[in-house]
């Protein structure tokens, strides 16, 4: 029983990286119609930035949680203005190819600068060790990651549903034509939304920094699993991205615990099942199937 609970927490903690990043991917896709291949690279940059900030400026995780998303937001805005915006009117496949090329460049640059071996990362004292919750011993950091990302997801959710800006973004994400028809200038939100999505990927990277090996390649497989996540959740659905993110994290954790050989494969089997049973994804609408 306690083992199962440990896997649940472990899975949800891993899932929160997917959930946060997939949330960013979904918002970007919704408003821009861009599937951002570089999302994994942005996640990697978030983690690398966290390690570098600690190493050079001595900024602990608490500061990184604040600073890195801001930096990534700015970086995202630059990428959108410099590259992505020129292809927005064309077939979305072109932006997939563009961000794929960008991924190769970013990963290689980090490799050249920081090498291929992992960067070290030291957790701040308050987050190390384990906690005993009613007889179940859990790593403190995993609990923190879980609570923190659920809080972020709830915050984003409140922002999306309770504020005017959020409602505009949500309308642009889920019903762009209708939003336009109601006189909302969807185009104005393109750049900040891209930055916001990139910042979420960066935030997932910050949280992953103490948890995973920080290497230039850490985002590659992550990006592909993210694609599986949004296919499972339903591309264009914000709730679907979050739920599927946690779900995939659970599948991964239980897979690693009970069938380590198949852990990575299970995620894609889950995706295949969803495609067969519900082609639009768990929370996708029918039109999105096309």
């Amino acid at each position, binding site marked *: 029983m306690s083992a199962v609970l440990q896997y649940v927490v472990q899975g949800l903690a891993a899932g929160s990286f997917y959930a946060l990043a997939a949330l960013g991917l979904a918002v970007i896709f919704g408003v821009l119609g861009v599937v951002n291949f570089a999302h994994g690279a942005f996640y990697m940059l978030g983690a690398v930035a966290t390690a570098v900030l600690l190493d050079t400026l001595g900024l602990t995780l608490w500061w990184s949680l604040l600073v890195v998303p801001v930096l990534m937001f700015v970086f995202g805005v630059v990428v959108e203005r410099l590259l992505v915006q020129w292809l927005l009117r064309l077939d979305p496949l072109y932006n*997939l*190819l563009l961000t794929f*090329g960008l991924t*190769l460049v970013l990963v290689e640059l980090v490799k050249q600068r920081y090498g291929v071996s992992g960067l070290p990362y030291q957790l701040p004292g308050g987050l190390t060790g384990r906690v005993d919750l009613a007889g179940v011993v859990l790593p403190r950091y995993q609990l923190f990651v879980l609570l923190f990302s659920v809080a972020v997801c709830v915050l984003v959710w409140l922002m999306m549903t309770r504020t005017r800006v959020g409602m505009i973004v949500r309308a642009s994400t889920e019903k762009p034509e209708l939003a336009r028809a109601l006189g909302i200038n969807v185009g104005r939100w393109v750049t900040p939304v891209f930055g916001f999505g990139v910042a979420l990927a960066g935030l997932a990277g910050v949280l992953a920094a103490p948890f995973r090996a920080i290497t230039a390649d850490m985002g590659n497989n992550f990006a592909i699993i993210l694609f599986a996540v949004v296919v499972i959740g339903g591309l264009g659905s914000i709730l679907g991205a979050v739920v599927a993110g946690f779900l995939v994290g659970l599948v991964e954790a239980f897979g690693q615990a009970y069938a380590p050989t198949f852990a990575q494969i299970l995620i894609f089997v889950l995706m295949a099942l969803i495609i*067969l049973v519900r082609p639009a994804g768990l929370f996708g609408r029918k039109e999105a199937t096309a």
Partner: protein
Amino acid sequence: MTQSAVTEAPVTGADAPPAGRDPKVRWILLAAGLVTALALPWFVYPPVAMDIVALALFAIALDILLGYAGLLSFGHAAFWGSSAYVAGLIATHYGVPFPVAVVGGAVFAMILAIPIGYMSVRRSGIYFAMVTLAFAQMVYFIGYRWSDLTGGENGLQGVPRSFFGIELVETQSFYFYYAALPILLFGMWAAWRIVHSPFGRVLVSIRDNTQRARALGYEVEKYKLIAFVLSAGLTGLAGGVFAISHGFVALTELHWSTSGDVVLMTVLGGIGTLWGGIVGAFLTVMLADYLASSGFHGIDLVTGAVFVLVVLLFRRGVWGTVRHQWLARRLRRRSSRRSPDSADPGEGTGR
């Protein structure tokens, strides 16, 4: 830009030129291509020449889907790599002449393409790219984990190159090139036949207007699936030859970066042109070879930058641009002679 645009917009870098095609030019191109293919190992290190031709067929096979059916497969490494492994295993364990092993690999790739294609063609556009990528990653992990069979990270080593006991072919890359070339040329011919057949016409119509094709009674999913399986089979031929040529199968052949490389070759050469795949493969392999020999590390930096630049500035690709210029010039000349264009109806796409 929005979801409606996601659905069925064709991925055609080369927009359909209005002029028809000229059989004379086609024969000249074909002859030039054949001479180049035959002369290549004299000018290029033979194993590299083999890589160029194998990757050219790989890019052409991808172009059947991308250029004609409008489907971007980001997971073709699954078929390239699995055929390489199967061909390598057959050659290792049964000692058959290498063409048999290559055909075995291609058949396996087609069989693998049936379930993957069945699930992937249910989604189109950007979804198709993501789903194929994800399935290819699954195949990669299977190859990685099943190390008893594949050698895992070490790859499959010591693949023999058996060819009816003809020692020159078995030991020397120069002669092996000529033994393997017919297989790849057959693949290219098959690709040409596929896209210029009535079947290929239906694919183009599905790409350009899925709803209308469906309304005309074509079973869209079936056509897409057949195209997918055929493309995987040709990819398999190329992957098998590649494996035998190297005498070694690396796990990289299944990796997503291989899928990306071949997409780059196709886009760089020109989507929807077939010839573009050959140009793209040639340029990419020569560039990689040059960079490697000049001691430059980080080829991905160059690959990625080329990707970004081509997509931003040069979407027709090399061959697509050449063809576009040539057709535009011919059209201008023809209209200045004031010959009525209606003499050339329907030959539409010029592909």
